[in-house]
């Protein structure tokens, strides 16, 4: 029996899960696409984590579950999480556990991009993109689709280019028209893709890093950090060494697992069932008609039994919980 902590990071595009042991080592991990269905994605992640543990002959004693990412509340209540925290804190703590001397974390995810500045092991400043998705993974994947390139190959193709095309990337929509134009006047595909990677970086730096000093050591993470083209563009643009961990995509999940470990100081074992795959979860979204706020309420059912209701601004919305 080994004490374990689970961290799950459910992003807009991908879902990440890790299990760590008492010494914060990752003993199992999984990374897959959310595909718009966070509940199923988490079921798969938990199953795969369990399989990994089984193959390593580890019998886990779960002492903490943490969830983070944009679906953290939904998944938190499904898994019975002991801690639900935002992704900025989780990323900072996850990265610091591996690289204590980190000063700057660049993070580009599916719909969010973040910049976290750390001083003496403590977060002192951060910036997040505004609602616009320019300069995030969503931009990259839509452009990749447009050019008929697999998103996983985007980096490789970009690094073939010697002469990246200049692409205006202030706005995703306009970047697209710029891109079409550049293709039509004869720029090669590699150059355009390299240009997109560069555009993402420039957009990121213009949006988030204005007025901030990016000091060594710089860690780049999030799903987009797997794209070697973007990494290269960051290196060229900042003229600094950029570190990308092999587990860079897992840092949020790792961080939330560590937080769940930290809050459970006594190491109490909690009740957790790995067979979540077989449990039927259902969510019902509806509008509360209690007042003219018309809150959108999501009720989560586990085997037809209501376990949580979210989204209401007042008790009236939660009142549904007792009735049904």
């Amino acid at each position, binding site marked *: 029996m080994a004490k374990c902590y689970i961290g799950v990071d459910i992003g807009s595009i991908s879902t990440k899960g890790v299990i760590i042991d008492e010494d914060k080592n990752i003993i199992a991990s999984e990374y897959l696409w959310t595909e718009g269905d966070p509940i199923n994605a988490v079921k798969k992640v938990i199953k795969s984590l369990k399989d990994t543990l089984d193959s390593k002959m580890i019998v886990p004693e779960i002492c903490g579950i943490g969830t983070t990412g944009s679906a953290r509340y939904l998944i938190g209540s499904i898994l019975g999480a002991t801690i639900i925290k*935002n992704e900025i804190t989780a990323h900072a703590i996850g990265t610091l556990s591996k690289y204590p001397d980190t000063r700057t974390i660049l993070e580009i995810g599916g719909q969010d991009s973040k910049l976290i500045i750390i001083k003496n092991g403590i977060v002192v400043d951060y910036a997040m993109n505004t609602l616009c998705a320019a300069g995030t993974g969503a931009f990259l994947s839509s452009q990749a689709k447009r050019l008929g390139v697999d998103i996983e190959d985007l980096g490789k193709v970009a690094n073939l280019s010697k002469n990246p095309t200049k692409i205006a990337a202030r706005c995703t929509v306009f970047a697209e028209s710029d891109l079409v134009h550049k293709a039509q006047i004869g720029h090669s595909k590699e150059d355009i893709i390299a240009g997109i990677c560069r555009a993402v970086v420039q957009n990121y730096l213009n949006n988030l890093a204005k007025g901030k000093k990016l000091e060594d050591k710089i860690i780049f993470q999030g799903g987009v950090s797997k794209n070697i083209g973007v990494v290269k563009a960051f290196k060229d643009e900042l003229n600094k060494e950029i570190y990308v961990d092999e587990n860079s995509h897992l840092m949020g999940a790792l961080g939330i697992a560590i937080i769940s470990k930290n809050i459970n100081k006594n190491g109490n074992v909690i009740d957790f069932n790995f067979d979540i795959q077989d449990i039927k979860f259902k969510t019902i979204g509806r509008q509360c008609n209690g007042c003219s706020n018309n809150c959108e309420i999501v009720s989560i059912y586990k085997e037809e039994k209501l376990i949580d209701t979210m989204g209401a601004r007042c008790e009236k919305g939660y009142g549904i919980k007792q009735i049904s």
Partner: protein
Amino acid sequence: MKIGIPRGLAIYEYPILFEKFFLNLGIDIVYSNITTKNILKNGINLDIDENCLASKIFLGHVNDLVKRKENEKIDYIFIPRLCTFENNDTICVKFFALYDICNNIFDSNFITINIDYEHNQSELKGFLKLGKKLGFKYTDIISSYIKARKSQDDYDRKKLNEQSFKLYQSNNKLNILVVAHPYIVYDSLVGKPICNKLEKLGVNIFFANINNLNMKNNKILKKKKYNIKNQNYLKISSSLYWKSSKALLNGIIENLDKIDGIIYLSVFPCGTDCLVYELSSRKIKDIPSINIIIDEQDSDIGLDTRIESFVDILNMKNTREILKKSKVI
């Protein structure tokens, strides 16, 4: 007689003054309902796209009263016209225009008060005209106004004292200053949920709109001048234009040594706030701050993430400092 007051914009500038004035004259008042999504929805339909969220909410409130007018026998709907104040102060042009805009959009009975010192319309004069239009005697109007003014001043003073008292009480919680216009921060759809969220995260909230700059002396008829000591906003900029921006910056500077973090809260699109908040966050360097702009979108998750992480980071910083002081690190 019954007067309806829309719960938006100008009314938050003087929450007591207008209400007390009418009550002192023996007029019944009704407020529009608190802001809900429905009110905002109606406001969006009525207002032009380019206007700010607060102005859309305001029109929603007026719409609410116009609808209730028949059933509840409301005689007038009161829409103040605030333009210029003492010491050449002025306010956002939305406040100039509200009365005329409403007259154009709705077919209803509106009544206004014109406060425009630049054109020699003092507060007292405005109230005299308003009272006369409602058919009261000058003596009654003047005494009602003076009493109402005093109540407003007492209310402001009380709020300020409460806040300063709270600031000087030491507890281990974080002190966060919310910088926003009163019509944003007290609104039940925009500001209140954010304040509730902050309270749930266990922080003390303070408001920049409660500060010394707007405090008046109780001698009403005497020409009022600012106390030079209270013009703290000059430390950030001497060329600020709007009255409310000056007040908010004053609120920041007054509390600077007591607060751990600043939340700049504004609604989209607000030209003034854009400029003033940017200016202030550049000049005040040693206090962490976050700028939140609210629009008509109603997904909360992005907002939650930003507020939560801001408080988390302040907490981390605080623990670090406590440890540093006790020389553990």
